[in-house]
């Protein structure tokens, strides 16, 4: 018993919700541009390894959407020293789980493993990164799997399909207008040569951030990364596609006629993301405003529109300050059989404009901030979430060392700041509105 408690308490990370909830980050940069970030947590003998790439949907060219995500599949199809499927089999044999995810801004590969296996996994990751096979036959099979993935996630899901279309209508230039999974038309035309060219251009050490969180020692991991990812040949990193989205010149609307059961109405508009030291108040105020509108049990949209006015049966809103260039702020309502899109749309804007004109109450503002900070504490309970936050902030160019600064910015947001960002950014004039309209059969 004594020994057990030693295990759990000796490495107690001391923080309270008042102080920053984050453990110390250790960082190492290698001559070829690869970076390592480690957060030690010795509370259980497990670790998560995540290999982040500053490569995603935004790095594709027109006609070849979906290419970045193809790697999420092909990376498991073999390399010089690992047969097809062997990577996952070896991870499974050590009791681990592995997978990957892709966004517009990044691609990440991860393994949750016993901590003793971290060295072996980092060597395997570097090997497939450097020597991917990319065989034509494997690609031919895998692109079919990807098409099934698109059918499942998007084509056969009316809500997803509507949001895909809405993003495309809302944006003129920014790559968030293209779906990460790719348009089906493009998926049917992609060739193995496209995949090989993308690999050669983008899978280079300067795009890599290795993140390890768990029961490891930074000095050990640094040595391992130095002789794996750190040894890869240096290659030139090109600037990423990040155009300035033109300011909307008026409201836009679209309708998606799909085989849905019930209608949905969503609004979206480009808003600024966080640039540390440059727009702290603005980005934090957008986040706080969104939390007041859609976070917690007392979320304003829900209370006003679902509980009081009965114009929808569910509402939501979202803002991601850790995107690249812009974020697409959104709000939507799910409508019941007797609820109308017009009724919801009016209620949505009236609720947002009421908050804009009157500002949040003192208690409302304090409550939102406390929840946002508490959520950061709760997130520390998951190794996966911790590693993901670090990798994401690195990959979009904010920097994982800015986590404390973000919480500081949230604490400083005033009621006036909330009013100001709503007035400037969340307006009818800037919005693209999408309506999911159930198809009617005659």
């Amino acid at each position, binding site marked *: 018993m004594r020994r057990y408690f030693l295990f759990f308490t000796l490495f107690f990370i001391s923080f309270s919700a008042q102080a920053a909830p984050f453990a110390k980050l250790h960082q190492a940069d290698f001559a070829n541009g690869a970076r390592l970030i480690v957060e030690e947590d010795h509370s259980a003998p497990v670790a998560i390894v995540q290999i982040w790439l500053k490569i995603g949907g935004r790095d594709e060219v027109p006609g070849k959407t979906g290419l970045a995500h193809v790697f999420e599949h092909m990376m498991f199809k073999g390399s010089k020293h690992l047969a097809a*499927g062997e990577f996952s089999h070896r991870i*499974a044999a050590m*009791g681990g789980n592995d997978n990957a995810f892709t966004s517009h801004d990044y691609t990440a590969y991860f393994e*949750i493993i016993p901590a003793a296996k971290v060295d072996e996994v980092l060597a395997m990751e570097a090997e497939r990164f450097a020597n991917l096979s990319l065989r034509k036959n494997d690609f*031919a099979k895998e692109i079919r*799997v990807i098409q099934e993935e698109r059918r499942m996630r998007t084509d056969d899901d009316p809500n997803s399909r509507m949001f895909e279309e809405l993003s495309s209508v809302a944006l003129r230039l920014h790559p968030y207008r293209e779906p990460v999974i790719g348009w089906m038309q493009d998926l049917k035309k992609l060739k193995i040569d496209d995949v090989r060219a993308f690999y050669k251009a983008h899978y280079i050490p300067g795009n890599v951030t290795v993140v390890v969180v768990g029961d490891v020692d930074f000095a050990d991991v640094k040595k391992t990364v130095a002789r794996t990812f750190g040894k890869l040949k240096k290659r030139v990193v090109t600037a990423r596609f990040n155009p300035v989205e033109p300011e909307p010149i008026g409201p836009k609307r679209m309708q998606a006629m799909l085989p849905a059961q019930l209608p949905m109405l969503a609004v979206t508009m480009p808003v600024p993301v966080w640039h540390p030291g440059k727009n702290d108040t603005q980005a934090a105020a957008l986040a706080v405003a969104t939390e007041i509108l859609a976070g917690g049990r007392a979320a304003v949209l829900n209370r006003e529109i679902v509980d009081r006015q009965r114009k929808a049966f569910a509402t939501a809103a979202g803002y991601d300050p850790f995107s690249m260039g812009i974020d697409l702020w959104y709000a939507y309502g*799910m409508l019941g059989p007797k609820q109308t899109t017009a009724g919801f749309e009016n209620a949505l804007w009236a609720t947002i404009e009421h908050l804009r004109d009157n500002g949040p109450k003192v208690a409302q503002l304090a409550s939102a901030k406390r929840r946002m900070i508490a959520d950061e504490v709760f997130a520390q309970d998951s190794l996966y979430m911790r590693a993901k936050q670090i990798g994401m902030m690195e990959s979009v160019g904010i920097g994982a060392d800015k986590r404390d600064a973000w919480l500081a910015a949230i604490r400083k947001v005033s009621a006036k700041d909330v009013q100001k960002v709503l007035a400037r950014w969340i307006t009818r004039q800037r919005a693209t509105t999408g309506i999911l309209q159930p198809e009617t059969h005659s």
Partner: protein
Amino acid sequence: MKCMLKLTAALFLYTFITPAAQAIPVIEQAQLANGLRVLLMQAHNVPMVSMRLTVPAGSRLDAPEKGGTASLLASMLTDHTAKQDYVAWADMLDAQAIRLGSGASRDSLSLSLTVLKEALGEGVDAFSEAALNPGWSKKRFALLRRDAVSSAQKSLEEPGVRAAEETAAVLYPAHGYGHRSGGSVASLSRIKLRDLQMLYARQFKPQGAVLAVSGDVTMKELLALIRPRFAGWKGAPEVTLKATPEPETTTPKNKHISMPTRQMTVQLSRLGPSRYDKAFFANMLLNHILGGGGFSSKLMGEVREQRGLAYGVYSYFIPLAVSGPFVISLQTRADQAGEALAVVQNVMRDMYAGKITKVDLDAAKANLTGGFAHRLDSNGKRVGLMSMIGFYGMPLDYLAVWGERINAVTLAEVKAEAKRFLAPKEWHIIEAGPIKGE
């Protein structure tokens, strides 16, 4: 109302379960005089506490034609209380960053709490108020029910929901497991507030209930908070978990649900093992090899890796108080559904015929035992495991011997379970998607 406690000594302290020597966290146990069992795993690395109260008021007790009763009761309990209307209640929870949740599954209804250590007292206050002082507002009930009906209608857009609904119906035509816990448009519409009150009055009792807790708290601190708040709660449920009737095996059926989708969802099902099955660990390994082990499973290998027929194909069984569902599911472009089904049935037939190797078994054992620490690496996961252990009456050394049990399973035992479960002709087949030729 004196709350004497039997503080049982922790049963397993520091054990080695695999050659890799993993520490098993201690489960501390206490029992309040009213019968409520309290299980705790301390973890002081994050200043937070998670807990879950589980009572035998699951959806299997929903009256016939009133599926969704337990689920609506769960929503009502966290929506408001006898002391606070929904507005004051939500404002109070939000201000303290108290995350309160609830839900119903087939066997149980649960309330859950996640809270900062610094707000633990307020959190336990709210948690006990939600559990023990229901508000029964008629107006809120009407509203929650209407929104649940809309939500149920919206969910009919999902082929997985349609297939799950039909699977439950064919597996359990005369049993409380025969509907989805959330209910359907028709069944939710029939539920009255009185149905919720009756379920609560009969089943929401401390005896047979379990409070599982994980986080930055000691048993002493925890009991000091729990005892005064839960002491007045008394009684035993009318229907215990043990009284759950065993379902009868039904004749396998093939059904097609017409949906305007591009893919066909193909779902095979049969009755599977219960939580108390003598061969439980052999079943776990069998399922892992079949389709539970992700990319290392046979189904994933044959359907996706070899043929590119599906993005996802998997199998699982839900171990309940009695035989739960054993399910195999995949989605594929509608014109490939027949081919994909044939591949699945071939895999089943081969395993049924004994084509399972020592290599397959050893790989499954290695993955399951090696991943054990990961099953326990967050407060949420620990609370989930302890709730299961406590609610189903598993021995407190369940986690300590888990790895040994897995490793003790022989190839012959797994083959015997394959013979027991994997004859393709014994499985129902539900398909949701376009009608052929459409």
